[in-house]
C-alpha cells in the first residue's frame, strides 16, 4: 500500500515563482561586485562616448547626446542579460537547479522564477540608465506616451534576450564559459546604430548593421523619444522600427525559450 502524500506539500506556480525569483534577485543585489561593476561600467561607457568621442561623431539631425542615450539604454539591456547567463550556468554547476528539481514545485517555476528575477533587475537598471542619460543632457523630443512606449519596448527586448541568455547559460558548462560566449553579443551591440549612425560605416558592414535586431530596437527607442527629428535622421517613422524590432523579439523568444526549456528538462 502506498503512503499518502501530505496534503499541503506542493507549492503553487505563483508562490514558487516568487520565492525563486526573490532568491535570484537577492543573490545579485547582495553581490556587491556585480552591482557596482555593472553600474560603473555602464556609466563610464556612456561618459566616454558622450564626452570623449561624441564631438567627432556626426549624428544627423540629432544632437549626439540625444542620439546616443537611446542606444546606450537599449544596449545596456543586452549587457544585463549576459549576467543572467552566468547566473544560470552557476546554478546548474553548483547543483542548485538539481536541488530545486527534487522539490514538489511545478517544473516550470525554476525558469519562470529566473525570468521574473531578471525582469525585475532589468526594470531597475533601466530606471538607473535612463536617469544617468538625463543627467548628461538627454532630453525627450517626442510625446510622453511615446516615451512610455519606448520604456515598455525595452522591457520587451530584455525579455526576448533573457531567453537567449538563459538558453546559453544552460548550454555552457560553467559561468566562465557562459560569460565568454555571452561576449558574442558585442558585435551586435557595436555594429549597430547604438553608438554611431549606420550610414557612417563602410558599405560591407552596413547591410549587417542596418538589418540586425539591435539596430531595429535602438532606432525604435530613438524614434519614439526624439519624434520628428529622429524620423528625419533615420529615414523611417517610429512604427517601421517598432514593428521590425518586435518581430525580432518574437523570433528570439520562439527560438530560444523552447531550447532553454528542453535543455532544462533534459537535465
Amino acid at each position, binding site marked *: *500500500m*502506498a*503512503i499518502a*502524500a*501530505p496534503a*499541503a*506539500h*506542493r*507549492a*503553487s506556480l505563483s*508562490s*514558487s515563482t516568487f*520565492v*525563486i525569483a*526573490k*532568491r535570484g534577485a*537577492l*543573490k545579485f543585489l*547582495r*553581490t556587491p561586485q556585480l552591482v557596482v561593476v555593472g553600474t560603473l561600467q555602464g556609466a563610464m561607457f556612456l561618459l566616454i562616448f558622450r564626452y570623449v568621442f561624441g564631438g567627432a561623431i556626426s549624428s544627423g539631425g540629432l544632437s549626439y547626446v540625444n542620439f546616443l542615450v537611446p542606444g546606450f539604454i537599449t544596449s545596456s539591456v543586452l549587457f544585463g542579460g549576459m549576467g543572467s547567463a552566468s547566473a544560470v550556468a552557476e546554478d546548474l554547476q*553548483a*547543483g*542548485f537547479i*538539481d*536541488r*530545486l*528539481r*527534487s*522539490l*514538489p*514545485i511545478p517544473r516550470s517555476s525554476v525558469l519562470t522564477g529566473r525570468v521574473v528575477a531578471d525582469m525585475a533587475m532589468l526594470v531597475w537598471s533601466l530606471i538607473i540608465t535612463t536617469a544617468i542619460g538625463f543627467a548628461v543632457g538627454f532630453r525627450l523630443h517626442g510625446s510622453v506616451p511615446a516615451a512610455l512606449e519606448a520604456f515598455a519596448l525595452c522591457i520587451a527586448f530584455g525579455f526576448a534576450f533573457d531567453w537567449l541568455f538563459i538558453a546559453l547559460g544552460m548550454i555552457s558548462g560553467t559561468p566562465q564559459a557562459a560569460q565568454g560566449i555571452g561576449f558574442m553579443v558585442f558585435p551586435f551591440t557595436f555594429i549597430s546604430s547604438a553608438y554611431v549612425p549606420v550610414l557612417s560605416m563602410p558599405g560591407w558592414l552596413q547591410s549587417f548593421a542596418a538589418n540586425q535586431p539591435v539596430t531595429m530596437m535602438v532606432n525604435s527607442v530613438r524614434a519614439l523619444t526624439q519624434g520628428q527629428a529622429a524620423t528625419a535622421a533615420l529615414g523611417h517613422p517610429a512604427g517601421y522600427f517598432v514593428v521590425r524590432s518586435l518581430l525580432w523579439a518574437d523570433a528570439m523568444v520562439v527560438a530560444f525559450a523552447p531550447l532553454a526549456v528542453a535543455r532544462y528538462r533534459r*537535465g
Partner: protein
Amino acid sequence: MTPSIEAVGLTKRFGETLALDGLDLVAEAGQVLAVLGPNGAGKTTFIRAVATLVQADGGELRVAGHDVRREPGVVRSLIGLAGQYAAVEPTMTGRENLEMIARLFGQSRRDARANALRVLDQFGLSEAADRLVRTYSGGMRRKLDLGASLVGEPRILLLDEPTTGLDPRARIELWDAIRTLVEHGTDVVLTTQYLDEADHLASQIVIIDHGKAIAAGTPTELKQRAGHSVVEVHVRDSLDIVRVAAALAELGDGEPQIDEATRRVSMTVPAGTAQLIAELPSLVAVGPALEDIAVRHPKLDEVFLALTGQSLETPAESPKRRNRQPAAVA
C-alpha cells in the same frame, strides 16, 4: 509496512558508462540504510534516481510505494535531499534559506517561519541564523543543508555522502545530528565511501560496486563475513617482509596483503584485540623485525576483497578521502 525504497533491476547508462547495472535494493521503513561503495559505484546515480533527478533506463523504483516514473510529484513531496548538493545559497541568511525551501514545500509564510526556527534550533544554528551563509564554516553549511532537507518534514531523507570533506569534529557532529533524526522517526538512506560511517549510522548496509549490489546485511553480519579487524604491521627491513607475512598468515584464513613500497603487511583477522593478545606469542619470533603494529577496522577495499575475492579497482586515493582510519587498538 511499505518499504521506504524498493529498487528492482535498476539500470542506467550515460553514453559509454553503465552507471547502474541491475541494482536491487530494499530500504525498510523505520531504519537507516547505508549504501556503501567506492567512487563510481553508482551511489550518486542511485540517489539521483530516487530523488527523481534522473530517470532509470530500466527496472523498477518505488519510493514509499509510489513509482518514481508515474508519480514523481508525490515522490518529491515525500523526500528530503542533502549532501553533495549546494542547497544552501551563500548570499542569503540561514533563516532565509530555510524559509525559502519551506515555502517551496507549499508551506504558508507563517508555517515556513516556524519550521525554519525549529530546524535552526535543532541544529544549534539559532545564533548564526541571520548571518549570510557565506560566513558559515563548512560544518555549519552542511548542518544547514541537512536542515534544509528537513524543513519540509520529509518521510525519507536521502543523504549523498554527507560528511565528505568535513573535518573529524564536524563529521561527528553531523553523525550525532543524523542519529537524532532517526530517533525521531525519519527514515534515512545515505550513501558513503566510509565503512566507519556506515557502521556508526546504519542498521542495514548494502555494498554496491559497478552499479550492482554485491552484499547486504547488518554491519555486524558484513564485518563477520569480511573479518572483524585488520592487523597491520610496519616492517623495519624489506628483507623480512616475507617472513613477517608468513607469521601473520597464521592469524587468519586469507592472504596477507603486502605493500612493498611502504613495507606494510596487513592481514584480516576474524576477531580483534582479544585475538591479537592471545596470539601475540606466535608473533614474538618476528617481533624484532616490526617497527609498529596496529589493529584497525577493515577499509572498504579489504571488505571488498573478503566478500568478492577481487580487489577494488580504485584509482589513486581520491583527495576527498581525508579521513584515515586512526591506528588504535580497538
